[in-house]
């Protein structure tokens, strides 16, 4: 019996879909059988980020309305040798096409066959959110270090804590800009975690390569040399129960001189 994890945030544009794609990818790289479920009906993106758009035949709504079998709608990611699948959202309906109890049943069926079901939640706290959290066992809240994003994350955490079947949510802080944190123009990790007071699952630095990879339909977690990829892989390992220390954000873009200074222990 697998575990269903919903990725949510309240606010839009903080990186739910990117996080879903990369956590799913990283878990598959760890040898787990993963199914990604896009619940953003009407505004689907996860297939694009995963580079699987052209292989969609059936979607979530087709499955729920019994126009096809589950395995017919699942898109297999050939890069992962039978370890990673995607259940895409419908692009033509809206959120009301699915009800929470249908989602719960669907996720339960997927849990029989997969180790991890990663559910990508739409922005907002309405019908789409309710559908996404219905079948989940755990929740990951994604936020950026911005006041508005943290405020919405707080709201969502409040709602998640009321759900009886979901374990206490965990936090991913995304798009941290180290130079802004240093200059005091951006909330730092401690400020965000003390405000939200939930466990921190991981931090991801703001990185152009993530955007580039998403545009190319290749999740960044596939690239072993990238820092953000490592961050997502660390998150996956923590989901699996390993203890992995947080990344240092400071090392990036140092000049040769600074590197030499570090080498001699002068900071």
């Amino acid at each position, binding site marked *: 019996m697998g575990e269903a994890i919903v990725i949510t945030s309240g606010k839009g544009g903080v990186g739910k879909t990117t996080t879903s794609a990369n956590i799913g990818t990283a878990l598959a790289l760890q040898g787990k059988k993963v199914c990604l479920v896009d619940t953003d009906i009407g505004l689907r993106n996860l297939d694009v980020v995963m580079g699987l758009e052209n292989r969609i035949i059936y979607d979530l709504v087709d499955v729920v309305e019994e126009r096809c079998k589950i395995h017919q709608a699942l898109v297999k990611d050939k890069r992962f040798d039978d370890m990673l699948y995607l259940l895409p959202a419908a692009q033509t309906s809206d959120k009301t096409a699915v009800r929470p109890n249908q989602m719960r049943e669907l996720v339960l069926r997927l849990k029989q066959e997969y180790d991890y079901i990663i559910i990508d939640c739409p922005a907002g706290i309405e019908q789409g959110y309710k559908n996404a959290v219905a079948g989940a066992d755990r929740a990951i809240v994604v936020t950026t270090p911005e006041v508005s994003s943290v*405020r*919405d994350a*707080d*709201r969502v*955490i*409040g*709602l998640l*804590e009321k759900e009886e079947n979901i374990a206490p949510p965990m936090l991913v802080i995304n798009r941290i800009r180290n130079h802004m944190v240093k200059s005091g123009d951006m909330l730092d990790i401690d400020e965000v975690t003390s*405000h939200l*007071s939930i466990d921190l699952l991981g931090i991801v630095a703001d990185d152009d390569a993530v955007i580039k990879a998403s545009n190319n339909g290749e999740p960044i977690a596939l690239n072993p040399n990238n820092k953000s990829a490592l961050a997502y892989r660390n998150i996956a390992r923590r989901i699996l129960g390993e203890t992995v220390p947080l990344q240092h954000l400071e090392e990036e873009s140092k000049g040769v001189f600074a590197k030499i200074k570090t080498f001699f222990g002068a900071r």
Partner: protein
Amino acid sequence: MSNRGEQLEMKKRQLVTIKGTKNGLSLHLNDICSYEELLRDIQLKLNESSTLHNEKRDIKVTVELGNRYVTEEQKEEIKQLIEEKQNLTVQLINSNLVTKKEAENWLEKTEVKSITSIVRSGQILQVPGDLLLIGDVNPGGKVIAGGNIYIMGQLKGIAHAGYDGDDRAVVAASIMKPTQLRISKYIDRDVKENPSKTSSQMECAYVKGEAIKIDRLQVLPHLRPNIANLGGGN
């Protein structure tokens, strides 16, 4: 002898005693006899009290029920019966009894409810009496109390003390950084401009004059000595 017996019978049937006070009349009703008997006797008594008929002024009546339990309907019935006499108005019905429900409401309004929780954005926590919150109130969250609010944690959202119109209610917090403070009908939005905002000590808010004032927590015992129900250290 038969005359004597009749008198005794009359004595025994004294179900209603009328007493005059400086605030009007007070009607003491027997609390053992049946309700019907009581009604009959009230009517009888009021009819035979000739002095009442001569009085031109309005007379205020206080009804003392003793240990009798009456429903709201019965209270209304007694009130109507008395007020049929044109110059009588019932101002108060006293009883030694309270129902369990009334007692529970009363208890709720006077007790300090302690809650361990974080009040997050969009959440509202409301109690009828005093609130002791062990945890933070995040921005966008709201705590409401009929009485005082004590927060062991950071107040960053909205707190509304004395919700039912109690001007003497206070808000105390370990860290006072509210988005908005409300006490009774007063609203304070300029909390951030308060000079003591930067201080790290615990603070309390109360109504002074027509505005909400924030001060050190230590001033509270002088301002609201009634909050304590146990004497301080000697």
